[in-house]
């Protein structure tokens, strides 16, 4: 069973993610990092919407991993930005 409402929501959120990506491309490091963090949250929500939309509980592990990896990845970027600042 496919729930089209959820797939439409996933498409809308994916469009927001692409907009964030384009904005991050043009901005300075700090502003780009903030935009990247929002994009990570949106990607997690897109995966959740796809899981519900396709009604496959096996897909549910992917957004869990994405949520944790987005957090860890962003903190790594924050650490690198801080180290880059202190070395400059």
């Amino acid at each position, binding site marked *: 069973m496919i729930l089209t409402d959820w797939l439409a929501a996933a498409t809308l959120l994916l469009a927001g993610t692409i907009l964030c990506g384009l904005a991050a491309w043009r901005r*300075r490091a700090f502003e780009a990092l903030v935009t990247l963090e*929002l994009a990570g949250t949106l990607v997690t*929500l897109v995966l*959740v919407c796809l899981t*519900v939309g396709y009604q496959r*509980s096996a897909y549910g592990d992917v*957004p869990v991993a994405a949520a944790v990896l987005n957090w860890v990845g962003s903190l790594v970027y*924050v650490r690198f930005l801080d180290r880059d600042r202190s070395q400059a």
Partner: protein
Amino acid sequence: MKHDVALALLALGCLCEMVCVLGVLWMRDGFDQLHFSGAASTVGLFAIAGAIVLTGFSSVSGTIDCLVTLALTFALNPVMISATARVGRRMRYESLDPTSSEFEQQP
């Protein structure tokens, strides 16, 4: 009725997320953008969680997986935003301490 409520909650959640995206795109200052980025893991998240509970899966484990994902995002995102704000402040002012002009603006 249940389907309509779930649809309304899903639409509300998507609307909240898109407002956050537009806010981040609209704002020029990184600290203003942080407010919108942090808000993306609050109201919209709960609305989508409500929609998931009402829609449900054929098995309970799928619902639990999705709710755990949203709970993780809600719990971990503020830590990330706070760490980013601290680095941003150090990049701009070289210190986390309040500046003299900020002391003067205190009531």
